[in-house]
């Protein structure tokens, strides 16, 4: 079957149409609301599978492009400038879209019974969130990208703020303010870029900068622009000193919110770095690489150490995200093909494993209404099935070979080692630590004697829960064994980013050259 020309538009707006249909249902028809929402989300997933045919193996550049001039913003010398409705997909965004469409129905299933108030609004919010996220991944116009990036905030904030736990409002507001702080600076950056290139269109800007980087007017400007984008993305990732919103948001969000937040939303940050920061501002990326990598490594180790001492299971998973995303950022900022491939893979793998972890933690919460580890213990006796599946996911998250976590981490470490072995060495500490905190917490929750009497009578995984978890585990296993299915398809996208970064650097006279940069560029040559 050949995907039609408007597949991307359909993908973005189908959930919106679905949520409009949901609004027509009566708020009391809980069962029908759930079913309709799930049907819409599943149909969306099936639709998105068409992308696999839309982006054939070995293709480079954007596919399935849609281009409609939307808003005329200015007119200079008789040439109109437009904000365009420009969509496109390549190997990189395709899998992120697939991840989104897969996890949306899963998280709906996971909240089947755990969400009890304002059910209609809940599912509408989830679907609108999906609209925003898919829009972010498919936009090729900076303005459109920004629009979806901002619009997506509101449903997420509502998810946390309405259906979350005790401190939900604090967490929701913190989440929005953090993200907005970054994105408004990005807006300034976008407008600045428009000002020098006269367009919001990403490929066009890319071309303009490639042809004549001088239009930026000096390295200082490139650096400022880089920072305007990078900080927005770094907040989203979140990179080490900007991560404080994440534990709050995760802990307070309902299970579905946590899953989407961890699996997809964080990836918007790393996706942005790959899509915008590196190709548009290669020199600034190179010169900042040392700082970014250092922060990433701090994040890896710091996240792991905090996770190690967490008494709260959900917070533990949240901090493990900080640690794992550190790997992704490190992989991206080595500018090495292998490490970047690994980073892309790790984005997807983390999405699945951490998503599954949050689902499992949510299931425990449904039973006992607490995240405190010391409230559990010896759960393997009453919950044999759940604990087996939990172990599987834990192992994938800590990077057991054959499972998905391994591929990404291994590639990142391999690539990083080629560039700078010290970075790889530091990052490897994180791998060890992740085994520590995950296994230790697993042991405390599931092994030993049942310490709390209440836990003896807990019900094991229901068929709905088993279905969710088996699906996740199947994906985990498939990604671990058949990883080349993904890496072959992302390879060209990553290579394109690398090629776009080859831009003549600023004249030696115009900016002082730092020793770090010389070293890096030598190493870049070495890896060819």
């Amino acid at each position: 079957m050949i995907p039609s020309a408007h597949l991307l538009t359909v993908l973005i707006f189908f959930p919106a149409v679905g949520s409009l249909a949901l609004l027509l249902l009566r708020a009391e028809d809980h069962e029908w609301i759930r079913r309709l929402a799930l049907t819409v989300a599943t149909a969306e997933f099936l639709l998105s599978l068409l992308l696999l045919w839309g982006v054939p193996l070995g293709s480079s550049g954007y596919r399935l492009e849609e281009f409609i001039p939307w808003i005329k913003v200015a007119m200079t010398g008789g040439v109109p400038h437009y904000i365009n409705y420009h969509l496109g997909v390549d190997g990189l965004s395709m899998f992120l879209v697939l991840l989104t469409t897969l996890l949306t129905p899963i998280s709906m299933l996971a909240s089947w019974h755990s969400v009890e108030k304002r059910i209609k609004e809940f599912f509408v919010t989830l679907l609108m969130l999906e609209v925003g996220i898919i829009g972010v991944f498919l936009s090729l116009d900076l303005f459109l990208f920004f629009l979806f990036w901002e619009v997506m905030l509101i449903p997420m904030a509502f998810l946390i703020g309405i259906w979350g736990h005790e401190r939900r409002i604090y967490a929701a507001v913190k989440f929005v303010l953090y993200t907005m702080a970054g994105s408004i600076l990005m807006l300034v950056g976008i407008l600045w870029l428009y000002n020098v290139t006269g367009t919001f269109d990403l490929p066009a800007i890319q071309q303009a900068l490639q042809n004549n980087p001088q239009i930026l007017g000096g390295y200082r400007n490139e650096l400022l622009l880089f920072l305007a984008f990078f900080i927005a993305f770094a907040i989203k990732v979140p990179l080490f000193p900007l991560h404080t919103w994440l534990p709050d948001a995760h802990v307070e969000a309902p299970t579905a919110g946590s899953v989407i937040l961890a699996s997809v939303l964080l990836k918007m940050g790393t996706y942005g770095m790959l899509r915008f920061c590196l190709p548009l501002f290669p020199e600034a990326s190179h010169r900042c690489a040392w700082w970014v990598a250092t922060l990433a490594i701090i994040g890896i180790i710091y996240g792991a150490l905090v996770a190690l001492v967490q008494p709260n299971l959900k917070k533990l998973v949240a901090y493990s995200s900080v640690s794992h995303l550190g790997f992704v950022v490190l992989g991206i900022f080595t500018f090495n093909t292998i490490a970047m491939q690994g980073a892309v893979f790790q984005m997807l793998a983390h999405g699945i494993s951490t998503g599954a972890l949050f689902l499992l933690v949510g299931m425990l919460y449904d039973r006992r209404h607490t995240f405190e580890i010391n409230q559990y213990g010896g759960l393997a006796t009453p919950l044999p099935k759940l604990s087996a599946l939990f172990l599987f996911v834990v192992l994938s998250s800590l990077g057991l070979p054959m499972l998905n976590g391994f591929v990404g981490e291994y590639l990142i470490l391999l690539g990083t080692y080629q560039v700078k072995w010290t970075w790889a060495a530091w990052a490897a500490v994180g791998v060890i630590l992740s085994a520590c905190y995950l296994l230790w917490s697993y042991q405390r929750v599931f092994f030993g004697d049942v310490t709390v009497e209440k836990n003896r009578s807990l019900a094991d995984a229901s068929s709905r829960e088993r279905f969710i978890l088996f699906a996740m585990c199947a994906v985990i296993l498939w990604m671990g064994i058949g990883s080349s299915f993904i890496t072959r398809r992302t390879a060209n996208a990553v290579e394109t980013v690398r090629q776009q970064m080859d831009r003549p650097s600023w004249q030696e006279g115009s900016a002082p050259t730092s020793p770090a940069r010389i070293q890096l560029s030598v190493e870049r040559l070495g890896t060819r």
Partner: protein
Amino acid sequence: MISFPHPDDFLRVLPELFWCGFGMLIMLLQPFVKSRHFLMFLALLGGLLGGVGTMVAGMNGGSAFYGLIQMDTFSFFFHLLISGVVCLVVLSADSYLEREHLDAAEFYALVLFATAGMGVLSGAQELLTAFIGLELSSISSYVLAGYRRDALKSSEASVKYFLLGSFATAFFLYGIALVYGSTGTTQLNLMSGADPGKVLLKLGLALILIGLCFKVAAAPFQVWTPDVYEGAPTPVTALFSAGPKAATFALLLRIFATVPAATHFWFWSFWVLAVLTMFAGNLGALVQTNMKRLLAYSSIAHAGYVLVAFAAVTTLADRGTDLGGIPAYAAVLFYLLSYALVKVGAFTIVSQLGGKGEKLTTLEDYAGLSQRQPVAAAALALFLLSLLGLPITAGFFGKFYVFKAAINSNLIWLAVLMAINSIIGAYYYLKVIVTMYMREPSGEAAALAPVPFPLTVNIVLVVSVLGTLYFGLFPGQTLNFLLHRALIATAR
């Protein structure tokens, strides 16, 4: 030699004639008409005819009455904006007046007079005419602010507004005198050749600027705003926050576009004003617990954003090119449009939810509103998101164009400061949304019953909501009109 004005001159002030005419008609009919709905209808008709008159006047553009008034696309835009605002305000006032047992006829008459003042203000091409417009709108506003005679707060608002307002008008008048002394004319289009370095001119313009800054609530002349906005009847507050502000900004634009003002002095004045105003508004709003006060501080902040575009207008950077400061002008106009739509809508909801005597205006009373009145909550949330500047709302594009204008003129730092302010602003707008959607009502708010929304109010909301979304999704056409037609004196 004095000749009778050309008949076309009257066409060019047709909207003002309609507004004044209907205002007087309503006053005359007051003893005879008992139905307040009929009066509302008359006032609405006056407002609408003002809009039609604007169309007619726009088709017969040109200057009127020996250059006192200019009917060009610029004032055409503002006249349309103002007549839109007045129609919405009249519609939202109907049920309010009924609820508060206030006299309708005087109210509508005063609103129409104030509107006529704003019309004159935005079309004036001569400073004394502008002064008359300013006074006409101000004096009606003083009375309107104190229209809830029995309420202490309303009287306080009126007195405060009157005292400070007349002080500011004095500044304005004195400024006119000095400008006259320096240039020998009060007619703006004759001033373009004046020497911008002249101290007397600078001083005069500075005094004018101060007078007008008071009217648009720019810091440090903003202190009256929260009290007046809070005390005035809410539909009047809606009018204040949209109408006079737009008209005064129109006059400011006209003055600073014609008088040679593209100097560092004016640039820095606007720069400082903008920064002060943004921070004063946003920081003030952070601690507010009353919706009316919160929106008042927010409107101070928004005046600051508009002033950012003014700073862009007065930079030398893009003077002399074919585009001139036009994008910045267009940004101001679009901003005022989006802002007026949203503010009127928001205040209408606040007015309707306020209950008798406007007792329910604290933030607490909005807890759980999404459950109690989902439609009103959704509309208010949309307006707040627009004020916050979130995409797919009009407010976003307003802010976007101001940003763009600032960056076009290389005012990166000002843009960054504005960005910081937007984030501060996000906090208090979110606070309201959070209260409406995420908090359970406690105390008295728990016992509140849904307030019915009459048809008139619903019309206002539908118009504001659709407008907010329309300008948020398809701003292109309007902006093009503003960019290419509403060029006023920049076309010189």
